[in-house]
């Protein structure tokens, strides 16, 4: 791919590992001066790591980093430089998670590290004046003297960009900048970025949203599984082609949704779709010839008007109602941060709803705690297995009974023999490797760690409902197939499954119905038959379906 303008950034053969995890391998990137470049890929593809290597936060294990100082002129090898050196050379990064000190004012945050002084003192007035001037010039409006803790997320992000520009950045890296912005805020951001590029600045935008890529970028680099796989000019491509490059094999998976051996299910899906079209809340057709743990006519999970208060919005979950039938997978798609996490935590009993009702197999469980809900037949594959799903320093065996400890004890005494037997059995059945139950969970790969969680949640109790949040995030290809297979089997066994995934291909591959969550509400609920990336996209970005749907 020829580059017409002189390159401002060139990364070649970058490799970066964290312990056993390979975040980048043989990743390369070239960005011309004055262009807006989109770095796209799924979650965990290694985009952020690669850009942190560029910004000097990480030193690469292998490969080279070259940058044109101040975004112009000849490339200089800067491999392994520090953040301070990167800033001095005009390279600045706006992180996905804000790097702001909440107790300091906007101006203080902006000048931190490059303070203006008057004698021995901070020159606060001049700092505020300069921030105001920069704010005027770039259109990034924010009050310079307000504490950051009082700002909205959109304003906080403007401060982040101001920070980088204040340091004279000519190469600006933005990591998922729109994840927390409203559509008008996104449009403002685009205007600012175009303005920067027009003045010769270079912008690298990390994102996984294709509409944004098409909107704003000049060129695109696609990453998959830690490496860069394609470099395309935006004008020469289509969202479909980008998606194919991003997702790779998962597209094939999505097409394989109704594979052999699942015909009965396909028939059921068709029927249910028909009932949805009739306006009724989806109800499963009788699951013939299959042993079901519940009367299939009744909802396994019925949620009414569920509302969860939040920090960023008044309500993270805003009056959501839905039901899931036995033998059905309800997929919840959407851009992350639209209330999916809070919804599942409220369902699991980890967060307290401010309003609404949750019924499990017909019984109201709204007032119950985590354990009581689990005992009532709720299993949960949590979104963040490192924080919630596993005690990383514990053995595989102990992790296989986390949350089931009362089932593996006699009185107060833990039944060590049953815990051991359980571990040996599950390690074999779920092919957890290495097959040594005494190893700490920390020592396992992402896929095998997730197998521990899945083994526990799918065998530990006689459950009616399974909550599966991002079940394949950060796991290897083999484990993805295994996990998808387990979810299909659970459905076949009559379990009701709520699947939340940021990966639309995964939702389309597994779900019988697809809901799209936007700003705490279900923007739409479609039967699988009618759901496609093209159809769902507008709902995910808020372009369609502002009304809450059941």
């Amino acid at each position: 791919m020829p580059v017409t303008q002189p390159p401002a950034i060139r990364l070649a053969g970058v490799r970066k590992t964290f312990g056993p995890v390979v975040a980048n391998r043989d990743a390369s990137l070239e960005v011309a001066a004055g262009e807006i470049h989109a770095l796209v890929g799924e979650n965990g593809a290694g985009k952020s790591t690669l850009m942190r290597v560029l910004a000097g936060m990480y030193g690469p294990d292998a490969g080279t980093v070259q940058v044109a100082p101040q975004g112009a002129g000849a490339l200089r090898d800067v491999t392994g430089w520090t953040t301070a050196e990167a800033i001095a050379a005009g390279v600045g990064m706006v992180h996905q998670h804000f790097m702001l000190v909440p107790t300091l004012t906007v101006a203080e945050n902006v000048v931190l590290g490059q303070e203006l002084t008057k004698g021995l003192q901070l020159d606060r007035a001049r700092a505020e004046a300069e921030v105001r001037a920069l704010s005027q010039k770039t259109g990034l409006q924010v009050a310079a003297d307000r504490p950051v803790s009082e700002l909205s997320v959109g304003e906080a992000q403007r401060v982040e960009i101001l920070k980088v520009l204040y340091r004279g950045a000519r190469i600006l890296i933005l990591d998922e900048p729109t994840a927390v912005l409203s559509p008008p805020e996104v449009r403002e951001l685009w205007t600012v970025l175009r303005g920067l590029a027009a003045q010769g600045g270079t912008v690298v935008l990390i994102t996984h949203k294709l509409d944004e890529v098409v909107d704003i970028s000049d060129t695109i680099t696609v990453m998959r599984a830690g490496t860069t796989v394609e470099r395309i000019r935006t004008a020469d491509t289509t969202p479909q082609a980008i998606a194919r490059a991003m997702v790779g094999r998962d597209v094939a998976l999505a097409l394989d949704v109704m594979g052999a051996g699942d015909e009965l299910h396909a028939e059921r899906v068709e029927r249910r779709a028909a009932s949805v079209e009739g306006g009724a809340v989806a109800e499963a057709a009788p699951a013939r010839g299959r042993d079901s743990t519940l009367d299939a006519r009744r909802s396994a999970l019925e949620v009414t008007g569920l509302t969860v208060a939040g920090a960023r919005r008044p309500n993270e979950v805003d009056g959501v109602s839905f039901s899931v039938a036995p033998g059905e997978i309800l997929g919840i798609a959407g851009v992350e941060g639209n209330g999916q996490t809070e919804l599942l935590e409220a369902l699991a009993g980890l967060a307290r709803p401010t309003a609404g009702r949750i019924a499990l197999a017909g019984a109201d469980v709204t007032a119950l705690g985590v354990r009581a809900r689990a005992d009532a037949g709720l299993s949960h594959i949590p979104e963040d297995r490192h924080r919630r799903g596993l005690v990383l320093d514990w053995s595989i065996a102990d992790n296989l009974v986390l949350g089931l400890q009362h089932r593996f004890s006699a009185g107060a005494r833990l039944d060590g023999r049953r815990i051991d037997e359980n571990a040996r059995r599950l390690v074999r059945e779920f092919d957890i490797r290495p097959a040594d139950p005494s190893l700490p969970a920390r020592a396992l790969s992402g896929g095998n760690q997730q197998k521990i969680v899945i083994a526990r949640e799918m065998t530990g109790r006689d459950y009616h409902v399974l909550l599966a949040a991002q079940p394949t995030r950060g796991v290897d290809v083999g484990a993805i197939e295994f996990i998808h297979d387990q979810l299909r089997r659970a459905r076949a066994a009559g379990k009701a499954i709520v699947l939340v995934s940021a990966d639309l291909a995964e939702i389309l591959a597994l779900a019988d119905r697809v809901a799209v969550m936007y700003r705490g509400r279900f923007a739409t609920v479609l039967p699988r038959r009618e759901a496609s990336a093209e159809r769902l996209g507008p709902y995910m970005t808020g372009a369609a379906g502002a009304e809450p749907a059941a």
Partner: protein
Amino acid sequence: MSDATAGATAAERADRRRTLLEEAVLPPLVALAIALVVGDLLILTFGQSPGAVFAMLLEGTWANAYGFGQVLYKATSLTFTGLAFAIGARAGLFNIGAESQLAAGGFAAAVAGLALGGAPAILAVPVCIAAAAVGGGAVGAVPGVLKARFGASEVIVTIMLNFVVLALLNYVIAAHLHVPETLHTPEIAAGVPRLADLSDAFRGSAANAILLLALAAAAAAWWYLFRTRPGFELRAVGLQPDAAEYGGVDVGRVWVRAMALSGAVAGLGGLNYVLGYKHYYEEGFAAGSGFLGVAVALVGRNHPLGIVIAALLFATLSQGGLAVNALVPKQMVEVLQAVVILAVVTSVPEVRRVLRAALRPAAKPAKAAA
């Protein structure tokens, strides 16, 4: 991501086990080596021969019955305070309040003993033991509740409570319970046998049957932490509160329970003096035992067996200081105790870092294979 461990061989697993062993055992050993060097320097400062001083230290502790008895007596108190800190630490809490909890336990035992008057030992001793546990547990529960309810830092609250509780006890003693011209309560009738009752060689040493209670407490703490459901939940809260919550555990309740339990164990430590040695509560008898408990737990890696061993080590140092006082000031051992803590607390992360760095190349082939 690549599957780093799928192809792990038996040899690699053995490697990993060895790492665990090294992480548990190596840091205390490194710390002791550092303390030995510092000790040598201090001894040389006084113009003495380190060899002679350490020989004298061992001579005065393990080589004669009286010295050994004193070591056992001191190790008994330290086992309790070490266990107390470890129970808190396993729940992710810093209980710096063992000193006041131990004092409260001793005080409660003395009051119970006084109230019982001349009741038979079979009744009086268990009541005193229970009183000590309740007294210490009540003081320990306060920071647990304040943390669970208000998020108050248990570190600060336990430190502040040390001063509050000790002042309160001093007041009660001074105003109501002291024997004239002293700072202690009247003697209680209840007591447990001393080692000196068994063999004349131990004459004068304070070692007593509370030693057995300390060993029982260590065994019970091990069983509770590693073999019971509440212990399982306590350890989950200590390592990853979010995972514990996900596992259906009420984190706040575990904090309260762990702090109460920790305080109760520290409170039992008060019995060593009150029930086993002097048979009265005296102002200031607990001084210093709390902070040394932190050291004991740290060197014992928060494991009951390690704590018993570390308690013996620190008790040997304390008693040994007295034995060598003629050659070098006994305060040398106080310096060494501090050095041991500092060395452990800095060498644990450092040893781990060095070990991890050394192990990383070995992990690469497995990654490539997957």
